[in-house]
C-alpha cells in the first residue's frame, strides 16, 4: 500500500525491492568482473600448463631465434624462428592487402557514399566479416591454391601469398569499421571550416580529416594486425604449413597459431612438447595483449586531446 500522507514510517525499512536491488547489483557486478576474471584465468591457466618446462628446460634464446622446430625429433629442437618468420611474412602480406582495401572503403563509405549504396556496402562488409575461418580455409585450399599455381606458375599454391590474401580479406572488415569510426570522430566543424574556404571534398579529406584521424587509423591497423596474427584454422589450411622460414611469398610457411593447432592433438598431455605449445600460446597472448593495449592507448590519447 502507498503510505498515507503524513506518515514517515518505512523510511528505514529495507523492503523486498531494496534487497532485490542489492542482489541485482551484486550479480551484475560479478558479471562485469567476470571479464577481468577470464583474462586473468587465461594467463594463469596457459602459463601454468607450460610453466614447469619453461622454468626448467626451455632455452628462451633457442625458442626465439632457433631455426629448427623439431619437437618430435630426438633430441627435440624447440626453435620457433620459422614460426615467427612465417607469422611475420603472412601478417605483412595480409596488411598489404587489408590496409588499402579498408582505408579506401572507410573513406568511401564514410565521406562519399550515401543512402542505399552506403547501406549495401556496409551489409557486404558485415557479410565478409561473418564468413567463418574454416570456410576461408576451404577457399584457400580449393580455389586460391590452383589459381596461384596457374597464375604464378609455382608448384604449390598453399603459401605465404595464399594465406596472406585470405587473412587480409578476413581482417579488412573490422579494419574498415574501425577506420570509419576514426573518420567519423573528426568533428564536422573542421570539415565545414575547410569547405568554407573553398576546399574540395577530397582536399578536406586529405588535408584535414586524415591527419586528425591518424591515431584512430593507426589503431585500426594495429587491431587488424592482431586479427591476422591470431587467425588459426584458415592459415593452417592455406599456408602449406612448412616449418621453415619463408624467403618469398611463394614459399609455404607455418605460423605460431597453426603450429599449436596442428600439434596440440598429437602431443601427450604434460610432455615437453605439450608444454612448449602452451609457452607459444603465452607468447601469442602477450603480443596480442600488447597490441590491444597500444591501440586502446592510441584511441584514448586522441580522445583526451580532442
Amino acid at each position, binding site marked *: 500500500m502507498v503510505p498515507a500522507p503524513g506518515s514517515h514510517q518505512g523510511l528505514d525499512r529495507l523492503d523486498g*525491492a531494496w534487497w*532485490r*536491488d542489492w542482489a*541485482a*547489483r551484486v550479480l*551484475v557486478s*560479478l*558479471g562485469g568482473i*567476470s*571479464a*577481468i576474471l577470464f*583474462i586473468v584465468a*587465461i594467463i594463469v*591457466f*596457459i602459463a*601454468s*600448463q607450460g610453466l614447469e618446462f619453461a622454468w626448467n628446460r626451455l632455452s628462451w634464446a633457442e625458442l626465439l631465434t632457433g631455426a629448427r622446430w623439431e619437437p618430435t625429433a630426438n633430441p627435440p629442437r624447440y626453435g620457433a624462428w620459422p614460426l615467427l618468420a612465417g607469422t611475420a611474412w603472412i601478417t605483412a602480406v595480409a596488411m598489404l592487402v587489408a590496409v588499402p*582495401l579498408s582505408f*579506401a*572503403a572507410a*573513406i*568511401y563509405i564514410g565521406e*562519399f*557514399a550515401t543512402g542505399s549504396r552506403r547501406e549495401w556496402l556496409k551489409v*557486404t*562488409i*558485415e*557479410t*565478409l566479416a*561473418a*564468413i*567463418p*575461418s*574454416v570456410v576461408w*580455409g*576451404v*577457399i584457400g*585450399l*580449393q*580455389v586460391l591454391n590452383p589459381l596461384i599455381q596457374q597464375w604464378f606458375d609455382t608448384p604449390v599454391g598453399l603459401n605465404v601469398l595464399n594465406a596472406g590474401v585470405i587473412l587480409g*580479406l578476413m581482417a*579488412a572488415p573490422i579494419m574498415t569499421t574501425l577506420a570509419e569510426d576514426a573518420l567519423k570522430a573528426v568533428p564536422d566543424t573542421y570539415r565545414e571550416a575547410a569547405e568554407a574556404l573553398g576546399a*574540395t571534398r*577530397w*582536399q578536406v579529406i586529405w588535408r584535414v580529416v586524415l591527419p586528425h584521424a591518424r591515431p584512430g587509423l593507426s589503431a585500426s591497423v594495429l*587491431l587488424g594486425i592482431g586479427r591476422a*596474427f*591470431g587467425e*588459426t*584454422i584458415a592459415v593452417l589450411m592455406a599456408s602449406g604449413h612448412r616449418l621453415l622460414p619463408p624467403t618469398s611469398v611463394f614459399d609455404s610457411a607455418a605460423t605460431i*597459431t597453426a603450429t599449436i*593447432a596442428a600439434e*596440440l592433438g598429437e602431443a601427450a598431455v604434460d610432455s615437453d612438447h605439450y608444454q612448449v605449445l*602452451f609457452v607459444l600460446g603465452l607468447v*601469442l*597472448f602477450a603480443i*596480442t*595483449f600488447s*597490441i590491444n593495449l597500444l591501440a*586502446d592507448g592510441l584511441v584514448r590519447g586522441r580522445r583526451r586531446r580532442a
Partner: protein
Amino acid sequence: MSGPPSPFAATAVERRQLSVQQLVRLLLACVTTLLLVPVLGILAVLVVEGGPGLTWSFLTEKPQRLGAAGGIWPALVGTVWLTATALLVALPLGVAAAIYLSEYARDNRLTRAINLAIVNLAGVPSIVHALFGVGAFVHFLRFGESILAAGCTLAVMTMPVVIVATRESLQAVPKAFRDACWSLGATRWQTIRHIVLPNSISGILTGVILVVSRAVGETAPIMFTGAVFLRLVPPESVFDRTMALSFHLYTVSTQVTDVPRHVPFSVALTLILVVLTMNSLSIWFRMRLRARKKW
C-alpha cells in the same frame, strides 16, 4: 561563348582540383567494390560447387567413409548442442556485464580494467582460447573433452559480442527515462527491469544472434575441447563429445583422403547458410529497431 568571364566560372586550378576529386572518388569506389568480389565470389563458388550435393539426405544422414560419403546429421546436431551451451553461458554473463557497465559502473579504474578485459577477450587469438579451454575446462574443472568444455570455451570467446551489443542498446535508452523512474522511488533494478531492458531487447537479441553466428563457425576453440572427428550417434548429454559442422569441414578438407570435390563445398555451404541466416536476422533486428521509434 565569348564575353566577360563570369565570376563563378572555374579557374584552371579549380577545374584541376575538381577532376582530381572525381578521379579519387572513382578510385575509392573501385577499391571498395573490390570487397564485393570475395563475398560474391565465395558465395557463388559455394553454391555452384556445393549446391548440388546439399540435399535433404545429405543433411539428415550419417557420414560414411569418415565423411567422404553420406551426410552430416551428427555434426549438425552437435553444432546445435555446442552453440546452445555457449549461449547459455555467455548470455547471462554478457548481459550482466553490459548492465553493470552501462547502469552501475562509474568512471574509475575498475571500469577501465573491465573494458580493457573485454577488448582483450575479443582480441585474443582463438587458438589461445582453445589452450585456455584445455587448461581450465578440460583439465582443471575436469569437464573432460565434452560439449560442456567446448561450449564454455566458446562462451568465454563470444562473451564480448554479447556485452558490446547489449551495452550499446542499453545506452541508447535516454538518460531522462532513468531520472524520471528514479524520482518515482524506483530502485536501480526496478528501473532496469521495467524501463531499460524492455527497450533494449533488440540489442540483446542481436547479441544472441551474433554469438550463434560466431559459435557455429569457430573451429580452433573446439577442436581440443570437445569436438571429435567421427561420432555417429548424436550426443545425449553435455558430457559427451560431439561432431561439429565447422570441425567436420576442417577434417573432410584436410584429414580424409578420397573425398569427392563437392563434399567440402556442400558442408561449407551449409555452414555459411546458417551463419548468414543469423547475420541477416541481426541486420533485420537493427532495421526494425530503427523503424519502430518509441520516443
